[in-house]
């Protein structure tokens, strides 16, 4: 809190753009830069390590800049490192990860934002109970849910097969291919569902609490105008919730992109995400550990979330809530 205290004496005029370098401003930037150093230190260590050769890493100078810069670890991590018999590095799983990310992201955020909206503005009997259960769910280490979920997916796959089987005679009569045995295990759809389930508690909470702090006059006015559930959601709530959507996207992109466990359990090798390759490069048990390649692979894997973090910055706009009411 020290920085704020200092500001208090010098800039009492609130968050207004400063025209000159006041003492408070120097302090503000000073604090931010010092804190940034703490955040950047590991990145620095990883960068320099990824540019060193293994003999140099064995010498053990963690902070020293590379004596001889080599880009080989990066090349290796992206396109040469072996993960089993496939020696094409991280590039192998990149598009799989994208194909997993996009539907999971869209589905989980749509469900959760509607949940949050319903919970904040359209309470019904029992809605808070379900919400409490969800919140408790956020505290369960998801590893303990692996086996129950495997069983559920197996059974519901069979259930859906049974449900759609009545259509098969019709499809055959029409000359179309009938439904075969539908499996949720080992398919992309199963994985998308799992991501939506595990993203739901925190995301729902995020949206519920955000919508709860939106001024209620807006909602009331719309109701008076006869707007319904979806109209209010799309016309009023969505445009106002941009910052929280950004947070939700940050949360989900990171979670889904870095997920490894669900990706391997609920899919098959042909759609394994990139993190499987990352894990295989990094976690070899008895093989030789190449720290430089590990660091490069981690940084490469982190690039997609990083780009999204940076690109989403513009959406961190100030809410238009109050203005809209008055206008």
């Amino acid at each position, binding site marked *: 809190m020290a920085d704020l205290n200092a500001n208090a004496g010098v800039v009492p005029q609130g968050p207004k753009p400063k025209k000159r370098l006041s003492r408070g401003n120097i302090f503000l930037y000073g604090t931010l830069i010092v804190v940034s150093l703490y955040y950047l230190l590991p990145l620095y260590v990883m960068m320099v390590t990824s540019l060193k050769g293994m003999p140099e890493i064995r010498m053990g100078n963690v902070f020293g800049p590379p004596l001889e810069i080599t880009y080989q670890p990066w090349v290796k991590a992206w396109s040469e490192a072996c993960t089993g018999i496939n*020696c094409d590095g991280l590039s192998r799983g990149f598009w799989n990860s994208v194909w997993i990310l996009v*539907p999971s992201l869209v589905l989980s955020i749509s469900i959760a934002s509607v949940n949050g909206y319903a919970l904040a503005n359209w309470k019904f009997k029992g809605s808070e109970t379900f919400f409490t259960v969800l919140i408790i769910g956020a505290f369960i280490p998801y590893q303990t849910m692996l086996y129950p979920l495997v069983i559920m997916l197996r059974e519901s796959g069979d259930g859906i097969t049974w449900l759609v089987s009545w259509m098969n005679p019709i499809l055959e009569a029409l000359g179309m291919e009938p439904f075969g045995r*539908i499996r949720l295990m080992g398919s*992309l*759809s199963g994985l998308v*569902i799992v991501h939506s389930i595990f993203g739901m508690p925190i995301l729902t909470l995020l949206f519920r609490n955000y919508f709860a702090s939106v001024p209620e006059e807006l909602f009331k006015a719309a109701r008076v105008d006869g707007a319904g559930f979806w109209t209010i959601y799309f016309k009023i709530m969505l445009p106002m919730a941009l910052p929280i959507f950004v947070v939700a996207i940050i949360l989900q992109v990171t979670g889904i992109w870095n997920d490894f466990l669900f990706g391997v*359990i609920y899919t098959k090798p042909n759609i394994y995400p990139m993190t499987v390759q990352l894990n295989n490069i990094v976690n070899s*048990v008895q093989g*030789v550990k190449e720290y430089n390649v590990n660091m490069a692979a981690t940084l490469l894997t982190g690039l997609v979330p990083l780009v999204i973090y940076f690109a989403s910055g513009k959406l961190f706009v100030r809410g238009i809530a109050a203005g809209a009411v008055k206008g």
Partner: protein
Amino acid sequence: MNFRTKLLAATAIVSASAASAVELEVTHWWTSGGEAAAVSKFADAWNATGNTWVDGAIAGSGGTARPIIISRILGGDPMAATQLNHGRQAEELIEAGLLLDLTDVAEAGGWRDIVNPSSLLDSCTLDGRIYCVPVNIHSAQWLWLSHDAYEKAGVAVPSDWNEFVASAPALEKAGVTPLAMGQQGWQQNLAFGAITIAVAGLDAWREVTVNKNADVARGPEYTAVFEAVASARELARESNVQDWNQATNMVITGTAGAQLMGDWAQGEFSVAQQVEGEDYSCLPGLGLNPILDTGGDAFYFPVNDDPEITAAQKELAALLISPEVQVSFNLAKGSLPVRGDIDMAAANGCMQKGLGILADGGVLPSGDQSLSADTQTQIEDLMAQFWSSDMPASEAQAKYADIIARAD
């Protein structure tokens, strides 16, 4: 909901129709460069038969790969073959009828006669039926010594564990950490196991580990073991690295005199371009008892309701243990082959020592085959606690005996 159901139906159909007849998906945790080279020997041999090897590599044996493998098998859509440590790990899957019975393949191939040591096949066997194919042998009881460190200390490179302990003061005087030790339970447990066999001898070891006799674990042989481990703990005081290969690196650079590690440490020495006998020495069985355990890897084949796949699974099982594949695989992997009837002349010095011991019958079953994973985890916890604290040897021994008494 509509959207979701459609999406789900669409993708499910695609994935269902994508599977073709003799594509076998194989899960394993060999992912580093050398290991990958070894796996590709399997894959090449399999692809040469006109079938297709779909590689499902997942690094990290115990905690990472195992839940994935079991989930896949439980989920009703298993891989065609999977690596597991042989031993007691797969017992329950076999009992639940989830793994394919390979007895007919084994009889046709005469595995009983060719697998050496035969204990490897025993650990694939439950109620007289064979369920897995052993593919290689790794052993843990090796002492790796740095010639560089001993040069600094001005003493001769020891030829067994006792000489090593005696040389420790000289090493310390020269500023060298006598024993490199990664601060992880499994490494400390590995060291404990190696010292046990060297100090307590085979009979006491077998009585405790195989027969779970807690009285012997409380007895004088094991008191000597725990005292030896306690003194090893003092020798490793200055070693505070985590990964096993960081500890190996201390031996390579001569900052540590020795390390207790399995035969896979060989890989780190070769990558650092060290020459056996010049830069480093290896002492199997710590130079005291020429005995190695026979841990290693095996492949299991989950039951599949498609008869075509079942036939292909059996074909693959026979292929993995065939002589040519065994030679090429184990040379690439740096492990020992499971059959005694093949020529491994291309192996390096340390591997030759190991082969010699195997040929002389100096084998004991791996702890994996005698103790359950649960018991092993408890021993690892105890070892982690013991190595990093000042817990007296007697207390550790008492706790150890309690774990053995509870073991199943």
